[in-house]
Each structure stands twice: as C-alpha cells, then as structure tokens.
C-alpha cells in the first residue's frame, strides 16, 4: 500500500507543476489583452500618468475618435466584404474540386491534388512581385477583384485538402443510388455531396474566414486607395501613428480585434478542429 501512497504523492507534484505552468501561461496570454481592453477606456493623459490603473470613469471618447479619424467604418465594411466573398467562393470551389478528386476515379486527380497540396508550402511572398506586375498589366490592381483572386488562390490548398479527405469518407453507395435514379454528377454534387459534407463545410468556412479577415500583405501591396483597404492594413496605417494618443490607438486595436474574438468564442470548437485537421496530413 505504501507504494501506492508514494505514487499518489508523486502525481500530486506533477499536478502542482501543471497548475503553475498553466496559470503562468494563461496570465501571460490574456493579461496584455485585458490590459488593452480596460486601458482603451482611459484618456491618453491617464495612461501616461499611471499605466496600470483601471479607468476612473467609463471614457468612450477614444472609440468615437478612432472610428472617425481612423475611418474604421470603411475598413470594417471592406474586411467584411473580402472575408465573406473570398470565403464563400473558396469554400464552394474547394467542395466541387474535392468531390471530383475524391469520387471520380481518374488518374489525373492524383496529380492535381498533389499540385494543390504543394501550395501549402508556398509562401505568399514568392508570388508578390510577379502578381503585382501581372495585376498592373491587366489593370486589376487597386480593384476588389485584384484582392479577391489571391485570397481565393491561397485559400484553396487547405480547403481542398479538408474537403477531399472528408468526401472520400462519404459512402459510395449513396451517390450510386442517385446515379441509378438517373441524376447527373452536378445534381449529385448539389443534392448528395453538399448536404453530406456539412460538418466539414462548417470547419472550412470558419477556418477560411479567420485567415481572410486577418490577411495583410495582399491588401498592403495590391491596393493603394484607402477606400479599398481592409481592417488590418487600415489599422496598421492609423494606429501605429497614434503614439501621441494611446487611448485612441488602443480603441482602434480593440475595434479591430473585437469581431474576431466574439467570432472565436462562438465557434472555437470548429476553429480548433480546422487547425488540428491541418496537421493531420501524412
């Protein structure tokens, strides 16, 4: 029995270490974010005076100023447009391609699939220069289309990977039954595959939306008009310059972050699934 006792004590030590690690890590992670949130309700002078103190009153002027001066309304609308449009297009295309790769037993599918999977290793920066040159030549630089195309192209590899893996798992018997009923492939895609793939579609949408919402470098290089810029690029241009008014800077950061944090707290299960699935290849 004493052996059992010893083991219990040892495990207690492990638990204690575990708590210490977890608490340190959690405080380090959310501490700065909580500090940012409550400081955004302090006027600049109070932040300089005592950087730790909680706000003395509920000062919302920072938010009004950040929203107006920073033109965050325009950036917010652009971000919503880019994210919604790119996510819907990419998810739809990836489901279609995933169906073709998973269920049509063509040899060439393996080649195409590999083609897309290699895209996971390609960095955005390796295509930036030629993409910029191409878009200028075609006259689609500084347009919404010019931003959406690279969003879709770089989103495809991951989503095609997720879609293909999932659709492979849908039993063949279901579509065979539809074939016997005389349905065409596109009808099968619409009436069998899309409904059956709903769980993976949710993961794909959430994963893709997050990536598109936070995307930075394409909007930075492919647009120059303020009216086309997204929240990350707009906030970077505006907030980075507000070192003379930290209250406004913090409010701008909070405005840029809040939608995603709410989105995350609502969907963190699916989001985690997307990230986890991304590492399950091989």
């Amino acid at each position, binding site marked *: 029995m004493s052996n059992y006792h010893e083991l219990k004590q040892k495990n207690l030590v492990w638990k204690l270490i575990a708590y210490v690690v977890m608490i340190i890590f959690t405080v380090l992670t959310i501490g700065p974010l909580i500090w940012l949130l409550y400081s955004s309700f302090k006027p600049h002078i109070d932040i300089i005076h005592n950087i730790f103190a909680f706000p003395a009153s509920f000062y919302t002027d920072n938010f009004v100023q950040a929203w107006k001066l920073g033109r965050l309304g325009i950036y917010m609308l652009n971000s919503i447009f880019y994210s919604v449009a790119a996510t819907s297009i990419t998810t739809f295309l990836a489901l279609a391609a995933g169906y073709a790769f998973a269920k049509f037993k063509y040899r060439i599918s393996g080649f195409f699939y590999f083609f897309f999977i290699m*895209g996971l290793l390609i960095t955005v920066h390796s295509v930036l220069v030629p993409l910029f040159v*191409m878009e200028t030549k075609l006259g689609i630089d500084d347009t919404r289309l010019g931003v959406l195309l690279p969003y879709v192209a*770089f989103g495809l590899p991951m989503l095609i990977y997720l879609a293909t893996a999932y659709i492979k798992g849908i039993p063949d018997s279901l579509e065979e039954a539809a074939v016997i009923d005389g349905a065409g492939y596109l009808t099968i895609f619409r009436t069998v595959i899309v409904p059956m793939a709903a769980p993976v579609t949710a993961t794909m949408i959430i994963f893709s939306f997050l990536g598109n919402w936070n995307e930075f470098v394409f909007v930075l290089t492919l647009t120059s008009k303020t009216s086309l810029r997204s929240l990350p690029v707009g906030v970077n241009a505006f907030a980075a310059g507000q070192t003379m008014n*930290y209250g406004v800077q913090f409010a701008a950061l909070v405005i840029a972050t809040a939608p995603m944090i709410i989105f995350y*707290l609502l969907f963190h299960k699916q989001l985690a699934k997307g990230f986890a699935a991304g*590492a399950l290849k091989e």
Partner: protein
Amino acid sequence: MTEKTLKKVSYAALTAPSILIYAFIIIFPILFSLSLSFTEWTGFGTPKFVGLEQYVRMFTDSVFLHGLRNNLLVVGISVFGQIPLGFVLAYIIYRQLVKATGFFETMIFLPITIAAVVVAILWAQIFSPAGLYTALMRRIYDDPRYVLKIFENKTWAMLPVLFVILWMYTGMYMIIFIANMQKISPSVIEASIIDGASEGQILGRVILPSMVNIIFTTAVLAISGSLKSFDLIYAMTSGGPAHYTEVIAIYMYVNTFKYYNYGFGSAVSIVIVILSLGLILLVRSVFRRFEEKYE
C-alpha cells in the same frame, strides 16, 4: 452525349475554376518570378538579363545575411520553443492534470484569432519607453529612468520579437497536439496506470512515441510559417532599428516596393522558397533516423 463524356465534362466543370485560379495566381507567378530573378528590372521597359548577379549581390549584402540569421532565429524559436511548449500544455490538458481544461485551452489559443498587425502594435507599445513593460520594470527595479535598451543591440534586438512570436503561436501547436493525443486509445493509458506507471513514464513511454509523426508535421508547419513571418515584424518594428530585426521577407518587400528592384526582389523570393523546401527536407531526414530508432 455518352455517359463517359458526360462524366468527363462534369469533372472539368467541377475542377476547372479552382485549377485555373490556382495556376494563374500561384504557379504562373512563381515561374515568372524565377525568370525575373535573372534580370535587372525596375518595372518599366524590358528586363535586362544579368545571370546570377542578383543572387551574388544578395549573398554579399550584410543586411541580407543579418536578415537570414534573424529568420533562422525565428525558425529556431518556432521549432524548439513553440513545439515543446505547445506539447507540454497539450499534455497537461489531455491528461487533465488541471481542472477547467476548457477554459485554459480557450484562453491560450485566443491570440491566434487576432490579426498579427494588432498583436504587433500592442507589443510595440508594451516594449516602448512609455509602455507597460518599461513601467513594470521601473517598479521592480525602483528606477524611474529605466528604459529597455535591447533594441539598440544588434545581437539581441530580435529577443522581444521572438517572445511575441512565441506568445502568439504556441496555442496553435497546443491545439494540434491535443487533437492527436485524443486519438490515442484511453485503454492503453489505463493499462499503464494499473501497471503502476508514473506520470513521467506515461509521457515518455506511451504518449511521446505515438506523437513522432505529428511532431514532424508541426516542425514542417513551423518552418514554412517562420519563413513567411512578415506581418508581425513589419508592423512591430518594420525591421528596424537599422535593419536589426529585419527578416528576408521584409528585405524583399523593401527592395521591391520601395526601391523598385523587381529583379532583385524576385531573386530574394526564390531564395525564400528554396530555403523553406531545404529546411523541410532536412527535418524530414532527421525524423527518418528518429523513426528507425523507435521501430
């Protein structure tokens, strides 16, 4: 239309849009970039063929070499910092060594959802002379004139940047490890507990060996992710002061879009691709050996 052609046409309809967009936006530009990298071009007129000159210029530029070193530091902190830390956190949650695992998991993963640019501006403030870190150190050292001088030091200027990278991405590796640990059959662990295995033995003999493949995959993710690191450093320091915190993606960006050296910028981006593939192959061969040892 026969059944066979119908199938072929359907296949084309389903795949063609994806393949065309992908080829047009990614494949074609990479080939374009490769050919531009052997030329000198400012965006006007015809590119002038200069052979390997751009590559020679790059590897003799001390700014580039320092950027390369910084990139390797980012790779290092990702592979030897984020992955082990993420693993430890995942293990604690998976084995439920603490209560409220859901809460901890959600909070540690949270930074991933924030735009890198926002994280960068936040931490730039924290490390600035009027920032939170400075104020904290002034209290701890009881010295009202304390300022963080690390950015002025060429050797150590990357340290705060590396810390922020660790802060932001560790949660992602944690989530990946948790998802894969959950696939281990619980009966295996129960059996080892009945056999009297300690927590350390469960970790070393049951969990770690079944995670070798996943550790490899996360290493690949970490390497390709590290070489892509741009947003965070661009918004936090812009590579400054005096290029001390510059990474090659920023070096490429500045040379292309500020100095209009398209040929040179292309050469740098080709080096990024080669470097990332090279490192991944290296990691792969290391893991091959490791696996052989285990089997």
